[in-house]
């Protein structure tokens, strides 16, 4: 049933082609009119009981007999060389069972430390308190080296040292060109230009990163709070030079990831090394402070953006120069240029993206990486352009509406962004925008909106196995993780739909490399759209096998067999022959395994998600406080699989977006290179008191080109437009355009002091 194909895949704003094995029995897509019983109806979480009773075991909760607890010693300096390290006092401390450092494990501990928080040594002890006591007994003599934590000098001097610039093309920035940018600006009647800055923002998943490692001879079992158990398995296999069948990685429940747990980290290797040395299981969970220092963040950016347009609002040129501070050991910057390339129809576009190495913690993927950072400048400057041309913000966006994919010229598989604009405007009452009178009042009100584009169509490789048990229940076995989005429930709905069983008859087993097939990882809004279609195929395969055997039993053709709600029907009979449970027993406890593989993506169309958000804010001109009063979201992500879960994703993304817009910022002391707020007190996350009225809406329509479900991803898209929608609303309220995030109370207060009622631009 398998065949090898080439398929294109859009991963976090970048499209590429890869070879995958897919099923050749691809079922017909569920169209908008498909009659579905489970899919599309709200269903509570199938693992809700475990989560509300405290029974769900997260990596943090794994306790094994004889398990030790580990702590890590980290660099206090942003750039230093270890001159000497002495672990003897820690080693001799009662209760300490293993110590690792560059002295004995040079493969993971370097003597050159690249950022404050870089790993120096680790140890494991009988309990957490002893480990914490002992870690400070390790004595290190550092030679402090010159450092740079800011990408700004790069922009000013034009060039830093060679090694500080990380780029894809031998020291050159990533450049994209469409049309002729000079010609575009020559044709423009009006040009707007600003330099925007976005901050370092942290995921702060409530469960920190970490792992539990356990050796049985040369077999390694690792529990890790991860978005990709298969990625961790490969990483450990490479590090320990072990075959894959000797490494089992488990993540049944995990306490949030938001992109930060997509990549593997040193914690699992350190836990495994300590466990091997001590001959006992080891748990190494990071502290909240470590979580803030080393596990990745949304990279800070500096974006110089220039737009040219005709007097009627038609864009003639978009020019972006972006500098991304990727930190130490950082990978390439994410696609901040994405929105400029693909949001609007513009013939002349140039983007230039520089990734700059600095002595700060490595950046990482964070919910719609790149596009969140890129949407703020573009959507802010589109509003400024509208203002210059005395146009409505919605009007200028519709004027430049991309009916085909501007980056490739291909048609979109489905695009209902226009409907998102209309519906959102209607719900929030966009027309009232003109009649707001803020003159002389302390509390001022404003409306703002912004748009979003992001992939999310999914793609191969992704696999699923469905097993029918002798009692008529079914199990879906996957290598996926449920990072909190509720995909487990969606998979149960899909299997229930095809097996014609109730959702509660389906058990979904995830998060164990020993039980489920390869999974591409829970990121990029890919899980429902990649793994979901494979689950459907596997359920159909299981059903087919069952029908064939049942047909043989009753001596009727397989296509004359039906199973409905756990009962077996044949021919046109309205009375069931027997229950499915009985049937399987009659078949001699025959266990059926259905297999599914995600089908290939088609060529010729672009599969993308769209959406628009509208914000209403109140700004207190005395305190600078912003209250987001209402947020209306309308997203176009194909079929909605589970409405209650979908609304939850939108609300959650918006609340994170509010934090990004108004309060969240990692602060680095430029003089020492030390992070000043690595905790949940000073890094200000939204609380229950910051939540506005959120109105989540969808253009619920099957995208028949996307995959056999007609559904696209939803985890990331709704965080993209939130911050620019709020920023635009603030600008309407007080007449000041803020060029940097977050727009804190202090910033608003200072801007009002400086500009008074004159308005203007504030850096």
């Amino acid at each position: 049933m398998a065949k090898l194909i080439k398929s294109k895949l859009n991963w976090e704003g970048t499209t590429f082609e890869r070879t995958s094995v897919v099923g050749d029995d691809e079922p017909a897509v569920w169209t908008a009119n498909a009659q579905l019983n489970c899919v599309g109806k709200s269903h509570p979480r199938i693992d809700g009981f475990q989560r509300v009773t405290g029974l769900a075991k997260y990596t943090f909760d794994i306790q094994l007999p004889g398990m030790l607890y580990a702590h890590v010693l980290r660099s206090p300096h942003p750039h230093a060389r270890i001159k000497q390290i002495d672990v003897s006092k820690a080693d001799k401390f009662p209760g300490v069972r293993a110590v690792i450092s560059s002295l004995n494990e040079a493969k993971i501990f370097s003597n050159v430390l690249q950022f404050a928080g870089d790993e120096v040594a680790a140890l494991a002890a009988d309990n957490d308190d002893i480990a914490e006591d002992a870690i400070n007994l390790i004595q290190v003599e550092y030679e402090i080296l010159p450092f740079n934590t800011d990408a700004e000098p790069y922009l000013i001097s034009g060039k830093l040292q060679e090694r500080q610039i990380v780029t894809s093309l031998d020291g050159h920035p990533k450049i994209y060109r469409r049309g002729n940018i000079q010609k575009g600006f020559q044709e423009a009647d009006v040009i707007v230009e600003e330099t925007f800055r976005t901050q370092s923002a942290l995921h702060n998943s409530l469960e920190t990163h970490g792992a539990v490692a356990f050796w049985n001879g040369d077999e390694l079992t690792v529990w890790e709070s991860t978005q990709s158990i298969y990625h961790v398995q490969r990483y450990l296999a490479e590090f320990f030079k072990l075959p894959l069948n000797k490494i089992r990685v488990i993540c049944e429940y995990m306490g949030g990831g938001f992109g930060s747990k997509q990549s593997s980290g040193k914690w699992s290797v350190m836990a495994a090394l300590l466990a091997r040395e001590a001959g006992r299981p080891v748990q190494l969970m990071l502290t909240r402070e470590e979580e803030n220092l080393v596990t990745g963040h949304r990279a800070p950016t500096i974006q110089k953006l220039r737009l040219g347009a005709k007097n009627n609002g038609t864009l003639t040129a978009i020019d972006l120069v972006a500098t991304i501070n990727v930190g130490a050991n950082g990978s390439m910057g994410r696609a901040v240029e994405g929105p400029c390339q693909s949001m609007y129809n513009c013939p002349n576009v140039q983007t230039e993206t520089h990734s700059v190495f600095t002595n700060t913690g490595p950046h990482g993927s964070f919910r719609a990486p790149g596009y969140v950072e890129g949407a703020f400048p573009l959507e802010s400057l589109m509003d400024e352009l509208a203002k210059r041309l005395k146009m409505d913000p919605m009007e200028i966006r519709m004027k430049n509406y991309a009916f085909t994919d501007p980056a490739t010229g291909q048609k979109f598989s489905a695009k209902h962004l226009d409907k998102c604009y209309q519906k959102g405007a209607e719900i929030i009452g966009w027309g009232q925008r003109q009649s707001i009178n803020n003159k002389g009042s302390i509390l001022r009100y404003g409306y703002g909106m912004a748009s979003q584009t992001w992939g999310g169509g999914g793609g191969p490789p992704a696999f699923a196995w469905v097993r029918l048990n002798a009692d008529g229940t079914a199990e879906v076995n996957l290598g996926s993780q449920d990072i909190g989005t509720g995909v487990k429930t969606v998979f149960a709905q899909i299997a229930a739909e095809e097996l014609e069983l109730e959702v509660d008859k389906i058990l979904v087993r995830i998060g164990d490399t020993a039980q489920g097939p390869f999974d591409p990882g829970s990121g990029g809004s890919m899980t429902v759209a990649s793994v979901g279609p494979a689950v459907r195929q596997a359920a159909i395969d299981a059903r087919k096998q069952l029908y064939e055997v049942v047909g043989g039993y009753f001596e009727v053709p397989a296509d004359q067999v039906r199973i409905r709600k756990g009962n077996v029907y044949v021919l046109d009979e309205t009375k069931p022959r027997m229950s499915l449970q009985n049937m399987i027993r009659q078949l001699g406890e025959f266990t059926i395994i259905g297999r599914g593989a995600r089908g290939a993506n088609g060529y010729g169309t672009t599969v993308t998600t769209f959406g628009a958000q509208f914000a209403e804010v109140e700004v207190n001109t005395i305190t600078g406080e912003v209250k987001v009063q209402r947020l209306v979201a309308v997203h176009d992500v194909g079929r909605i699989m589970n409405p209650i879960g979908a609304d939850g994703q939108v609300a959650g993304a918006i609340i994170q977006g509010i934090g990004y817009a108004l309060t969240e910022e990692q602060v680095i002391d430029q003089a020492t290179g030390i992070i000043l707020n690595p905790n949940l007190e000073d890094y200000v996350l939204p609380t229950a008191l910051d939540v506005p009225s959120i109105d989540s809406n969808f253009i619920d329509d099957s995208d028949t080109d996307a995959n056999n479900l007609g559904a696209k991803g939803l985890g990331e898209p709704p965080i993209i437009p939130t911050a620019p929608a709020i920023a635009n609303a603030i600008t309407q309220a007080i007449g000041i355009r803020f060029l940097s995030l977050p727009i804190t109370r202090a910033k608003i207060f200072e801007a009002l002091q400086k500009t008074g009622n004159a308005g203007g631009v504030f850096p």
Partner: protein
Amino acid sequence: MPSTPKKPQLQVNVRGPDKVPVILNVNRRSYTLEIEPRRTLLDALRFDLNMTGSKKVCGMGECGACTVLLDGKAIYSCLTLAIECEGQQILTIEGVSEDNNLDPIQKAFIDEEAFQCGFCTSGQIMSIKALLDANPDPTPEEIRQAVSGNICRCGAYPNIFKAATKAAIACRKQRSAKKNGDKHGETD
């Protein structure tokens, strides 16, 4: 004429720093633990009693994931020493449901999908339990205040508010049914 104040008797009861026996009453059962006095209640619950429902997220009283009830009051168990809790009733998420019957708050959390990853959920439920036990008919503002010390990074707040509202109604019904039942019992 005021009497001369008695010299206060300073009762010094030094225990530790090594492990000492500590008796804790958790979820209606008594446990004797051998722990260092510096052990926090959260660590004692998690490490010594294997009750891992209360979560350690910040360890500094900033997030509320470790919330438990101490004599009915919601507290941060990461900021409380286990030894300080002797003689008091500790209620954790593991003790909220009795005989496998979910508490109305837990049921409402499932129905309203008042969680995503679930890591803050125990704390949220305990904060709401403390609220509803003390105030069976809270206003929306009181509900928000009650969970304002419980961070949910997934942003399930709107559904948490809905669940708390729904649970309040269910709890009131349960109470009045119990009350009526009791009265009935008395007259019989």
